[in-house]
């Protein structure tokens, strides 16, 4: 879907500092909410010119640290030399054209692809090669894009499955999730398959939050939602992040995602292109032209 507003990148230079595109419109985004600079290369957006950074690694501590990652499906390699960091409690989004490997990054973190090289470390421990069941235990939750609820199970049973690896059903955590998504408390005994798209997305997020993960992976959370629900969904993600859970998100709605996140990664053809604060990426002329539809 993002193909519509993200045409094939043409002639973008590897280094953002060499950006020589006319910066006529870049000022319009300079009033984007300034987030705490996390990236080392986080040039402040100026009226004159904005250049997105290409320093993909984070300087300080990162809970998720991906280095030179090669991965794909079977013999088909999708990612090459991907570098990506997520700091504690950070909100990071991945944007890029269709086929750039955005979702593959997430699936690889979660052990769902073929690992071909490089490392994925979570909280200092290498996790590449682990099975999803083990990765959940490490403290990562994953909300896939499609079919992310068990339609034949009730809302409550969906949540309980999210804590399968625990011996006891964590009632307190279910209450926390019901407080976060009150509609789910009302629909507790209803089969998830009968819920609306937005409610299903809440069930899916609730399930992924059952173990109170340190990092939540969200694959296209706004896909398939009615337009008036998209903002609400982003607000909920903000609140999940505000309560201390780091978020790594792939999103088709790239502008909104970059506006909300702390940092963004632009992926092209399975590799890194730009990395910077969300507002800087939004303001960068090349990024806007090539990936955000102008």
């Amino acid at each position, binding site marked *: 879907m993002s193909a519509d507003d993200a045409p094939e990148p043409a002639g973008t230079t590897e280094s953002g500092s060499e950006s020589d595109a006319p910066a006529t419109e870049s000022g319009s985004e300079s009033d984007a909410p300034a987030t705490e600079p996390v990236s080392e290369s986080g040039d402040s957006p100026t009226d004159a010119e904005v250049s997105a950074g290409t320093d993909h690694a984070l300087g300080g501590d990162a809970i998720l640290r991906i280095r030179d990652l090669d991965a794909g499906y079977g013999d088909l390699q999708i990612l090459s030399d991907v570098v990506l960091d997520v700091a504690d409690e950070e909100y990071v989004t991945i944007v890029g054209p269709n086929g750039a490997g955005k979702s593959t990054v997430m699936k690889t973190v*979660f052990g*769902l692809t073929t690992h071909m090289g490089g490392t994925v470390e979570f909280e200092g421990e290498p996790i590449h090669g682990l099975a*999803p*069941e083990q990765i*959940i*235990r490490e403290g990562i939750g*994953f909300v*896939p894009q499609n*079919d*992310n*609820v*068990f*339609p*034949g*199970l009730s809302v409550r*049973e969906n949540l*309980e*499955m*999210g804590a*399968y*690896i625990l011996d006891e*059903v964590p009632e307190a955590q279910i209450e926390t999730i019901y407080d976060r998504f009150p509609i789910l408390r009302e629909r507790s005994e209803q*089969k998830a398959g009968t819920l609306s798209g937005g409610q299903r997305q809440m069930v899916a997020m609730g*399930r992924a939050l059952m173990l109170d993960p340190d990092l939540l992976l969200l694959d296209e959370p706004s896909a398939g939602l009615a337009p008036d629900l998209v903002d609400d969904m982003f607000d909920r993600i903000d609140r999940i992040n505000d309560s201390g859970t780091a978020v790594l998100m792939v999103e088709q709605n790239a502008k909104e995602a970059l506006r909300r996140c702390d940092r963004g990664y632009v992926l092209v053809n399975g590799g890194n292109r730009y990395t910077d604060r969300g507002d800087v990426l939004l303001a960068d002329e090349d990024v806007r032209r090539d990936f955000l539809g102008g």
Partner: protein
Amino acid sequence: MGTTDSSIVDAARARPGLLFAVLLGGLLLVDLAAKLGGVGLGPIGGSVSVDRLGSNLWNGVVIGLVIGLAGIGLSMTYSILSFANFSHGDLVSAGAFTGWGVAFLIAGFGDVPVRALLTVRDAGSASPGDVGAHILSTPGAILVGLVAAFVVTSLLAVALDRAFYKPMRDRDGISLLIASIGAALIVRYLLQFGYGSDRRGVTASVEQSNLAFGPLGVSVNAHELTILVAAVGLMVAMHAMLQHTKLGTAMRAMADNKDLALITGIPAERVVTATWIIGGGLAGASGYLYVLLRGTIQFDFGWLLLLLIFAAVILGGIGSVYGAIVGGLVIGVVFTTSTIWIPSDFNQAAAFAVMILMLLLRPEGLFGGVSTA
């Protein structure tokens, strides 16, 4: 009125099969009423006693419960492992032989050589009367035999999974189906090797075993009642397990969406093993109960029964446990009541005709698409 007529006509045009089924069903009901009333109108009518109809229905329910019980496992392996398991019928046979071997050992120990007991009277080495296995005379032996049938068959099912299906876990359903036909042949001929190929009587006859007489004048014998209690008990236990335990919920989750189950952290292999234990165990128990009903045993009876089990599962909506139970009851009742209209040699054909009709009218089956597992 005009609009109503045309909408009926439209519906009939759109779904001629439904019209045909409704007409045929109506005709059979009118005919049945005429038969019960003893009215003969040319080709329709005749005479059927209420007693006969009642006992046909009762027999149909009992056979249907056994078929439904066997169908649960078939439906579970279909929904959780995504293949039609053709070795299921031979698990039914295996449960019958091993269970009855244990029941015989307990019932006839001391009176009859152990080898003859464990092989369920291979080569006619003792008469059923010598062993004396009957729910009224040796209830303990019958019950322990049922448990043994469940346990041994579930172990066999897990062993078959480890040997054949687990190495092929990510292959497509057709490959697994063909492998299961091979497994079926192995089990069947191992049974023939171990227990012989004769059809022979199993249960002893006990006087006064017709316990009750229902309101329709139906005679209910003690073994039928045993089957009713055991099958319904196992089905209720199955329902409770599926709906109210963590394992059951995980099974339904895996039937719903295997990829998501993996992402959620449900240990797939453990759920698969539990599926074989429960599905295989129920197959073994149903085979044991089938022999209790028929009174005879033969090494390939489960294979012959498998077609009816498949018919029941497909009728109910393959993948649904509750569909398998209801489908089993429908197939069982059609199987026995069809003899009112057609020779009993053709009653299997009637059961399959109903299944085909169901596939034409509602391809997803009775419970298909409603709820998995």
